[in-house]
């Protein structure tokens, strides 16, 4: 006698503890085995691009905060960079240095959330809170700097909204020396935890050619073993002045490109960000941070595509200007949007529990997936 078996469709989300927002995954499962994953997006769609067309160039900046709300500094910067390139604005040195420092701080803060939520998805809740405790230091630095903890509206076209706080340098240095010591805690507690390794090594292996073909970027791409970082490979701002390494996945615990590699790349990237901050913090020149802000932003006709290395990957802004005060078209190439596409490929043949681990290791923010 043979038993009749059926595959089951499990609807994960939009309301689910670990879809990181309102993502809906349609899992086709055979018992616990995942046969197919279909993501359904758009639950957080608010048509940023349409909004941008109705705004003047400088008014778009606060909207960019809401894209990747865990890395708002990077979003501001990417947009400002695009418009600056379109208009040919040269920003002062001081602004460049401050931008680099806040962006690297933001990268650390963002990775902390990414690692923490990845750990929490796998069931380790304590590292999550440790990381959030450390993130608090960065957020309070940002709060001193621009008055906001999450959505900063700090980096404007041509400059910054505020100069840094008098205590900024001191506090950043304190944080750097504090966090250099604390990052080891994370390694001890989680990175080399046997159960964590069992759960993440050899899971969701993303081969390099697939990663490139799917357009993956950021830690998801570097986890697959290629040292591709826009700060080095397509340098913008003043990143060519700093000395830092690009961590890549080496397959230390399993195959190259598995969840553990993506996780570990983020941990090591935080260290490199600390290194960049250390190099930059003592060399902030004096000056006015708003001197280069144009009175009226009216770029010439043309198109521009700029990309920066956001914590989640390559954040691109494609702006078409028709010579008016409003952008004609703004398209955001959101790293999470592109990285999420590969999820279906990674999950096939794994178990339900692995889907969560893989999704956590890709690290998406629905704010920029749905825009």
């Amino acid at each position: 006698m043979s038993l009749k078996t059926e595959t089951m469709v499990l609807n994960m989300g939009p309301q689910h503890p670990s879809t990181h927002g309102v993502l809906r995954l349609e899992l086709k499962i055979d018992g616990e085995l995942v046969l197919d994953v279909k993501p359904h997006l758009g639950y957080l769609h608010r048509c940023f691009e349409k909004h941008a067309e109705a705004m003047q160039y400088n008014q778009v900046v606060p909207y960019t905060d809401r894209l990747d709300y865990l890395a708002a500094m990077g979003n501001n910067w990417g947009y400002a960079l695009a418009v600056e390139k379109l208009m040919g604005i040269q920003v002062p040195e001081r602004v460049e240095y401050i931008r680099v420092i806040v962006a690297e701080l933001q990268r650390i803060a963002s990775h902390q959330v990414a690692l923490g939520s990845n750990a929490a998805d796998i069931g380790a809740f304590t590292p999550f809170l440790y990381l959030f405790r450390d993130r608090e230091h960065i957020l309070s630095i940002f709060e001193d700097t621009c008055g906001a903890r999450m959505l900063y509206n700090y980096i404007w076209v041509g400059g910054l909204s505020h100069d840094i706080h008098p205590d900024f340098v001191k506090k950043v240095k304190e944080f750097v020396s504090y966090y250099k010591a604390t990052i080891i805690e994370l390694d001890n507690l989680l990175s080399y935890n046997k159960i964590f390794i069992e759960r993440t090594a050899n899971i969701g292996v993303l081969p390099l050619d697939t990663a490139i073909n799917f357009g993956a970027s950021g830690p998801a791409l570097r986890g697959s073993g290629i040292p591709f970082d826009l700060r080095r490979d397509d340098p913008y701002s003043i990143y060519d002045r700093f000395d830092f390494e690009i961590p890549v996945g080496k397959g230390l615990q399993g195959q190259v490109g598995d969840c553990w590699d993506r996780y570990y790349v983020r941990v090591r990237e935080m260290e490199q960000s600390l290194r960049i901050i250390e190099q930059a913090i003592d060399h902030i020149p004096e000056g006015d941070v708003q001197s280069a802000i144009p009175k009226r932003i009216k770029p010439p006709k043309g198109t521009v595509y700029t990309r920066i290395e956001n914590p989640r990957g390559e954040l691109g802004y494609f702006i078409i200007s028709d010579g008016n005060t409003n952008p004609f078209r703004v398209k955001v190439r959101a790293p999470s949007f592109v990285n999420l596409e590969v999820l279906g490929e990674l999950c096939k043949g794994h178990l339900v529990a692995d889907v969560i681990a893989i999704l956590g290791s890709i690290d998406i923010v629905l704010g920029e997936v749905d825009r």
Partner: protein
Amino acid sequence: MKNAEEIFNILKDNFGDAVIALDKDTPTEAVITVDPLKIHLVGEFLRTNEDMMFDSLMCLSGVDDANGKKVKDADGTDIIEGGTLSVYYHLHSVSLKHKITLKVSAPREDAKVESVENVWKCADWHEREAFDLVGIKFLNHPDLRRIMMPYDWEEGSHPLRKDYKNPEFYQGMKVPY
């Protein structure tokens, strides 16, 4: 490393009329205009050719050019007739580290562009987005559905068109609130 002009010339040699123009006048980046029904062949060539190696599609954007004639609709609002919709492809080579922008334009009323989904996988969702928001139909796309808007959003209503009008109702719910 190759600059836009060299790439244009190589493409012109290989594809002839399918490669239409090179626009160098824009202040920031040069754009090569390609025939929308040949773009997948051009893409495949660019990805596999040894001198090109454009293995990564950075971005694919659908654009409403709004270059048609503005006419008044029956209820007095502006709509656009004629003109084109465009798709921009921003390509990048991870190994050779050069970049190029391609552009295809198709008539607004019946915009059909060949899909590059089987050249670069990441085009899948980008193309769905361009279809959803701008209304460009990608031929031979495996799964051309809406992606951002609800699946049952009004047929033929694409928010990023310049003459888009909010529908009054969606599923019996009032939309402009």
